């Protein structure tokens, strides 16, 4: 005699419940992220102007985009900004982390001071720096008032230098975060390794150069990925700090996309620029996420 136990309704539900619970989030992501990406990518091949339109124009928008002086400026600015921003953030972050790692009294106060800008909106920090750098009332004016009449600092009004003020504000906002990442990395290094190196007679300089910094590789990688994606997405800061000006001196792809799509009514070109931005980020993020998720299997 064999009795085969039957699955009750409740049991059946329990089997499907996990997937059921996950599905709303998944559906949202598939539609609002991947569906939208496909839609925008599609629009970039159409003659959309003020509203989406479905006339297929092939690569025309991309051809136009890359012949636009405006886009060229935005891409060049992006390159300058991204390289400087990432390099300076990493340098300052690493330096501060190493210095803070020297049994510093007051580390508990300094650390939050370095990091707090990260909690602010880019609009707030952009506003603050906008007036700080404004020659009329900011630093320059202050120096003049203090008696240093020849002091000149008008980068924000200068077409050739304005992009560096964006770098300055962005570094101010995120370098503390990079510091925190490196500090966590340093604190995570096995103490026995450091002791062994000291017994081996390594000087402080060599200790960091030969042991610690190589061991911080994962932190460097994470910093690079985070900074790169922040750089490409930079939008609010430019809006608040310079509004893309003077002229187009601080236009970035993100501001370009916004103005072409919503104020210049060139949606096809706007969509093309957004697609290019996505591709750039994907080229960095996908290998990174792939390796991160693979290791955890």
């Amino acid at each position, binding site marked *: 005699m064999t009795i085969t136990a039957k699955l009750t309704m409740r049991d059946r539900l329990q089997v499907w419940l996990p997937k059921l619970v996950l599905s709303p989030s998944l559906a949202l992501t598939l539609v609002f992220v991947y569906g939208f990406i496909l839609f*925008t990518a599609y629009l970039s091949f159409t003659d959309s102007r003020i509203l989406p339109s479905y006339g297929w124009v092939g690569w025309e928008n991309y051809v136009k985009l890359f012949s636009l002086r405006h886009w060229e400026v935005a891409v060049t600015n992006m390159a300058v900004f991204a390289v400087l921003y990432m390099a300076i953030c990493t340098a300052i972050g690493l330096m501060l982390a190493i210095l803070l790692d020297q049994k510093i009294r007051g580390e508990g106060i300094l650390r*939050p001071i370095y990091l707090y800008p990260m909690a602010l909106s880019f609009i707030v920090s952009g506003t603050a720096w906008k007036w700080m750098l404004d020659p009329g009332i900011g630093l320059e004016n202050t120096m003049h008032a203090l008696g240093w009449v020849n002091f000149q600092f008008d980068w924000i009004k200068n077409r050739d230098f304005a992009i560096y003020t964006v770098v300055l504000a962005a570094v101010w906002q995120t370098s503390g975060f990079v510091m925190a990442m490196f*500090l966590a990395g340093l604190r995570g290094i096995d103490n026995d390794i450091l002791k062994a190196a*000291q017994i081996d007679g390594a000087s402080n300089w060599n200790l960091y150069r030969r042991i610690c910094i190589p061991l911080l590789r994962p932190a460097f990688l994470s910093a690079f990925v985070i900074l790169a994606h922040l750089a490409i997405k930079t939008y609010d800061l430019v809006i608040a700090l310079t509004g893309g000006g003077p002229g187009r001196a601080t236009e970035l792809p993100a501001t370009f996309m916004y103005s072409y799509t919503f104020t210049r009514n060139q949606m096809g070109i706007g969509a093309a620029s957004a697609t290019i931005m996505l591709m750039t980020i994907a080229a960095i993020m996908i290998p990174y996420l792939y390796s991160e998720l693979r290791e955890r299997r």
Partner: protein
Amino acid sequence: MAAATQDMVVRTGAVTRTLIYVVLLLFALFYLLPLVVMLVNSVKPLAEITGGNMIAFPDVWTLEPWRKAWSEAQVGVQATGLKPYFWNSIKMVVPAVTISTILGALNGYVLTKWRFRGDTVLFGLMLFACFIPFQIVLIPMARVLGIFGLAGTTWGLVVVHVVYGIGFTTLYYRNYYAAFPSELVRAAQIDGASFFQIFWRILLPSSGPITVVSIIWQFTNIWNDFLFGASFADFSSQPMTVALNNLVQSSTGVKEYNVHFAGAILAALPTLLVYIVAGRYFVRGLMAGSVKG
């Protein structure tokens, strides 16, 4: 942040040590300067700012700029001050944070304790969504919000922030629950607890820290957002960041720097407070978003 300091003493000379302190303090000054400048100039009469020293303390202390920024300043068309926009932000942030955190917790639970074939791929898809440049979704999102009648509403923004916040909250809970012993879940299964009972009775009581992290991160991110607010909100639903930008960029009349500074601090205050009160969790959230290990 890791509380453990290295017990190894790195020996440094007195000169080097002094130098280290000098550098560290200079950087502290660099990070503090904009905030101090904003604070100092937000309590000065306008004449003192245009006339003189940005860093000097005010000769005449006044809270007038704050009052003006809050309830009188011309933001956009009407002279309402930032007050209504502050409430817009609150009305947007609270539901968006709540919903995205709940979804993230459930997703993390499923992805770690009820694993199935292909779950990592699904998680990867959700995670990648955190990093896309949001420009790529602006056009279709505007259309979809329009179709559902959510364009220009606070609820529209809530939807947007929930959708693009799920990736992060899921990441937090997934990493946290991955370290939660699976044997407990198995024991509860044998004890006869259902899917939700296991979540509610076993996992959730231990999820305090990560919930704080998730809430703080979402709160900060959504409060500070500008792009979505600028793209999808109208005057009835614009968040604080957009209003602040309008206030600062308005080209009419005299630039009231002191009011702008007061407004900027008002916009920064909630996240700054959260940072001061729960900075530890804020940093954990930042780290989890970068070093996934």
